């Protein structure tokens, strides 16, 4: 299992992460200006810019700089921020923790709800309950998250002011500050990310309900709950797992827009700030973390699918 399944994937994971950093590094080179011009502003003299460039090591060729960064990164040293001069690790770590809390709530509450709604929609196919759920899911898929977020703010911070609209404390907010402020960002994320899971689960349930084995099980005269939870759900959930994994990865990899709307001090906000200041070490570490999350989530989804699917667990010939 380990050698056949996980090791090759880990190999590919390394390649994926490397490619992602190269792409991001290249894209940053293509942007006009660099950290030195951003820090010194428009009125800086060419001399001052050149000096700062030398200090920051930006005078070397891009290839040289990337190789140096890579060499350090492999040993766990991701460098210091070009803006604050502090090591990037702790700063990104704080942001990752905040995003993880937000994502965790969304995943646990939102995705369970989404799976349940998808199941209900599939079971009551073409009835009013299905139409309602499907329509809401379709709306969730079609509206961009910043509109959802704005509408939620309008409704629950302005019309009925029960939740704060933004995190006032910004990046220095403590966990206690974040608590109530997390509700609206989490709701926006749930609404958008759940839509795909609901649709996928619904389709999957409908497919399974039409299989011969569900028909046969029904003819055995078993109870509806047994039919649904023993015969339908285990098979229906398999194709949905990958969509769930993609959504989890998307959540952690930086829900840029939602975080900046609510001024939530997570990976997304940090990334936007770092891009604006051309803070390459921070951006590269965010890239690495994001890519790793993607790879790990997909690996976990495949593992879960294998564990849930007896066909993969017990290949036919290994009797």
């Amino acid at each position: 299992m380990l050698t056949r399944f996980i090791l090759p994937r880990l190999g590919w994971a390394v390649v994926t992460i490397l490619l992602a950093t190269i792409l991001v590094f290249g894209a940053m080179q293509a942007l006009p200006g660099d950290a030195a011009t951003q820090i010194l502003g428009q009125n800086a003299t060419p001399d001052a810019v050149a000096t700062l460039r030398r200090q920051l090591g930006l005078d070397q060729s891009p290839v040289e700089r990337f190789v140096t960064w890579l060499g350090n990164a492999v040993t766990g040293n991701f460098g210091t921020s070009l803006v604050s001069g502090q090591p990037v690790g702790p700063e990104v770590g704080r942001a990752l923790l905040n995003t993880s809390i937000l994502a965790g709530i969304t995943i646990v509450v939102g995705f369970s709800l989404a799976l349940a709604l998808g199941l209900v929609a599939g079971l009551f196919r073409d009835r009013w309950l299905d139409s309602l759920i499907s329509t809401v899911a379709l709306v969730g898929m079609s509206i961009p998250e910043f509109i959802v977020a704005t509408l939620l703010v309008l409704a629950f911070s302005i019309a009925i002011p029960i939740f704060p609209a933004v995190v006032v404390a910004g990046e220095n907010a403590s966990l206690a500050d974040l608590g109530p402020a997390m509700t609206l960002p989490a709701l926006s994320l749930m609404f958008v990310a759940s839509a795909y899971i609901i649709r996928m689960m619904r389709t999957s349930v409908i497919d399974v309900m039409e299989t011969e084995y569900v028909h046969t099980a029904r003819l055995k005269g078993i109870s509806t709950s047994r039919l649904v939870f023993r015969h339908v759900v285990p098979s229906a959930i398999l194709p949905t797992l990958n969509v769930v994994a993609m959504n989890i990865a998307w959540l952690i990899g930086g829900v840029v827009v939602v975080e900046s709307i609510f001024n939530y001090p997570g990976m997304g906000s940090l990334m936007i700030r770092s891009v604006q200041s051309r803070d390459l070490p921070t951006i590269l570490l965010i890239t690495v973390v994001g890519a790793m999350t993607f790879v790990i989530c997909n690996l976990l989804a495949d593992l879960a699918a294998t564990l849930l699917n007896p066909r993969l667990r017990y290949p036919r010939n290994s009797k």
Partner: protein
Amino acid sequence: MSITRNDDLAIDVKDLDIAYMSGKLRVNVLENVSLQLRQGEVLGLVGESGSGKSTMAGVLLASLRTSSFVASGTVHLDGMDVFKLKGRELREFRASHVALVPQNAGAALTPTMRIGEQLEESFRLDATSSATRDARIRRSIELLDLVRLPNSSGALEKYPHQFSGGQQQRIGIAMALAARPKLLVLDEPTTGLDVVTQAAILDTLKRLHQELGMAMVMVSHDLGVIDKMCSRIAVFRRGRVVEEGETSLILREPSHPYTQGLLDSVPRITVPGIPPSLDDAAIDAFEHGATMPPREVSLYERVAPEKTASVLAIRGLTVDYDRKPKPGGAPTVLDFDLDVHAGEIVALVGESGSGKSTIANVVAGLQRRQSGELTLDTTTALAPTVAHRSKAVRRAVQMIFQNADTSLNPRRTVRDAITRPLRLFNVRGLSAEEALAEVGLPSGFTERLPGQLSGGQRQRVGIARAISARPSLVLADEIVSALDVSVQSSILRLMDRLARDNNLGFLFITHDLAVVRSVADRVVVLYLGRIVEEGTVSEIFGPVSHPYTSLLLASVIEVGDDHSETIAPGQDEVPAGPPARGCPFASRCPLVVEICRTTKPPVIEASSTHAIHCHVPVEKLRHSQTTSLRSATRFQQTS
């Protein structure tokens, strides 16, 4: 339960109409059906696809397709009006009175549940069996033993996919029997199985019926199976019962031309020649008051071509799906030789997993081979993959597939499907109209889409597509297996005519021995990727054959057999792969001797054209003459 009456009848269906709405129009699936069956009897439901027999089977389980409804009439099972049952009552009725043995147990067992749990679910209303965990396990093992599943105690912890098709079917039967039903409904229970497995499963079912005595309803298109299993028979055509009564009576002396036509259009392993097709017009005329049409028993006997040039020669073909062969393993196909001559129909016969489709794919260039020479038209060596073959070679080798509905693009017209190969090869072949005329379809069909054609017509389009580029070799993979018998014989006649008129060589892959007998000139019998016997069609169906061929022939079930023969236990257990040495059939062979397990069998030349790969001396290969016995019955019956 309320509404009861006359419960010595297992089934009492009165004036039943089942319908669905197509727009504002009511379409009847079943019309005016009345059927009765006494307790303990076995009823066969016979008919072609779309005749309503499967709908009838569903009705007996109180189950209809979502859009269908009972328009009028009543269905009483065991004295209970089943369509009046709702919710819990219906569930308990299903859990205790009726059970279904599905057509394809592989698809009917839930893939994510262990066999044990699925069995227990079926007898959970039975208080004694399901009292304790031990009692449940005991009852489950008892059920699996009842259906003769090998290693029954180890099976409970396994999942459905870990069993072969025949074993899955046995589990399906065990599951149906679990609740001790009073009525067992079997929907084509052996249709997807190999002939030996089919015979073994039917033996098991027959024994179970004798031991348990429940009433059974068996849906099948196969009259031989019905004849073996059923005491009564109801013949369905277009949603109506055209004839109903005692099996022996109806199959010997049908009083409706449809039953007669069904009987006469089935090819037999005992009688050479292609049977006549069903005459729908005559049947319709009869239903409108005309007299019974005379019984047509003239079979068309094909004549093999004389000494024509070779179109395909295969020498020493070996195919192995394992890239790195394991010690103790053996290649999928080993040392395979074959010749197809112009105008000749060569049948490649074997059970599923025998490698017949692998060989066709190698010839078509879709599957790589490890070694072996393939020669087309005596001069051209065939490259291993289709990408390395010239356009001329690709044009010369064409394939027809089993499922015409899935091998035609549903969005392309018939004309597109037929002329596409021509445009690809940039050759002047037949026009779409000419190709359709060749396969007996009107030229007006060119603009139709596959969805607008019947199954037989689609298969004709598939054939037209294959011949439009004027190939010299056609690979026909199970091309009549999915068709109703009435259409089957017309396609067989078409194959015969194309071979003769166009000098086409056919490599015809099939598991159906009766079809082989009717249309093939020469036969190659394949077992686990090795040739066990080859010869002309009369030699293969003659009195001397390889033990495997004998087993296949003995397993075929036809109307008029005495049906007493049974398959020895374990004879239907096909090993997962060929042995590394010795005879591939040694593990199942009734005549096996020690040398068979160690040494490759020699080739016995029973005649210049008849070769048997076997260690047993040829005198002992003369089998019990079942075939000649059977032909006697057949002639009695038709005279």
